[in-house]
């Protein structure tokens, strides 16, 4: 049985194959029938409306039906019951389990107890492979993944999307630029891992140093609660804000991505620029998740 738990479990060739599959799905007008007569449980133990809707849409487009259990029902399910038991029981109702859970490693555990394939839709501060795959997919729509300069901007210490993306990018021959405020830099253990994997990593604290060299700028939220007071937060948020002025001398093929929802990281005036790909990125969640579902069934 095949599960999708962590991007770290993927070889580069497997990532490429999944992205190719997503592309084929994207270009095919359908209708799709691979999930005809099959049911998928969307077990969401913490709220994530977008991820859940995106999976539900992917299931429906493949001709399947989904049973959603959201965080409120999820918490009553989990009352007094282990995740292991929940997963064993739900396995007997459905053909695939999509799991979102606040504890890191929850999807790995679920896969050990499930008798059907498990897809990780985010586990706490841990892995979120569907997000990473759709991020890669969106970059690949604009340019090959080889030889490019990718800037990761924002909270690189706690932000899990950037951690898995950085790891996935280290499969390719490219340069990662980290752009993070003091105290929110990428953890040393991750940086070492990227270097070990032969990736070039360049650290910056000022975005203006590097913006004109980037092919991809991946922005993430900087959360207010990471800062001791409002003033220091606003200072940082302001100096990391992406504006049309900042992007004036960007490379021609450069694109701006963001996992959304955004706060003030990206000026809404950027939306009109051709480099703004974050809504496209959100849309890509559906074909990528369709490809993941097809992969596991």
């Amino acid at each position, binding site marked *: 049985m095949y599960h999708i738990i*962590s991007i*770290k479990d993927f070889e580069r060739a497997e990532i490429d194959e999944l992205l190719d599959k997503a592309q084929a799905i994207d270009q095919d007008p359908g209708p799709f029938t691979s999930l005809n007569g099959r049911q998928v449980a969307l077990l969401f133990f913490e709220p994530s409306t977008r991820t859940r809707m995106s999976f539900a849409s992917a299931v429906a487009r493949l001709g399947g039906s989904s049973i959603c259990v959201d965080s409120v029902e999820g918490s009553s399910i989990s009352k007094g019951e*282990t*995740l*292991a038991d929940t997963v064993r029981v739900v396995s007997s109702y459905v053909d695939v389990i999509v799991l979102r*859970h*606040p*504890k*890191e*490693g*929850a999807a*790995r*555990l679920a896969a*050990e107890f499930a008798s059907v394939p498990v897809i990780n839709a985010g*586990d*706490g*501060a*841990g892995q979120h492979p569907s997000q990473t795959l759709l991020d890669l997919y969106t970059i690949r729509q604009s340019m090959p993944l080889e030889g490019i300069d990718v800037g990761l901007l924002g909270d690189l210490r706690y932000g899990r999307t950037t951690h898995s993306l950085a790891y996935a990018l280290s499969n390719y021959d490219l340069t990662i630029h980290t752009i993070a405020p003091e105290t929110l830099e990428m953890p040393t*253990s991750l940086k070492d891992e990227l270097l070990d994997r032969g990736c070039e990593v360049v650290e910056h604290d000022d975005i203006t140093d590097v913006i004109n060299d980037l092919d991809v700028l991946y922005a993430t939220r900087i959360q207010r609660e990471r800062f001791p007071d409002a003033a220091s937060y606003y200072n940082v948020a302001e100096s990391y804000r992406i504006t049309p002025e900042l992007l004036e001398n960007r490379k021609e093929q450069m694109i701006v991505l963001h996992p959304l929802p955004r706060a003030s990281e990206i000026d809404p005036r950027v939306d009109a620029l051709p480099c703004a790909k974050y809504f496209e990125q959100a849309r890509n969640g559906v074909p990528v998740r369709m490809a993941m579902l097809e992969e596991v069934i």
Partner: protein
Amino acid sequence: MPEEPKALLIRPIRDGTVIDHITHGEALTVLRILGITGTTGEKLSIATNVDTRIAGTGGLKDIVKVSNRELSKEEVDRIALIAPNATINIIRNYLVVEKIGVEIPRYLRGVIRCTNPGCISNANEPIESAFGVSPNGLRCHYCDTVISSDYAQHII
């Protein structure tokens, strides 16, 4: 001349396992890892801070003798993290029939607790903690957290 007190410190056993050259001060932790609690029935002799001439030990070691139980290599390898120089002697009828060193296994189950409070292995689930062992330390099978020092503090 009275017998030298050192010889009385820990008596030979007839059958069982002697774990020698334990890093000094770790004998009780070793027993905990092996699941030998004093209520589990084995007859135990424990000597701590025994003189040793082996270099790099600070001149001291601990010894544990477990009567009437032959520990398997798999069991004792679990102590290798905190007592890497330990040797295991299997005793039958007062004779050492087997003498082996400990090796850190490639995979450690149920020995170390993950330091990440958000890790599923610290929740109430029917699983043992699990770590992959590499030169950089121990990597949690569930959440990827790496523990690279102070192993003894994280023993379950």
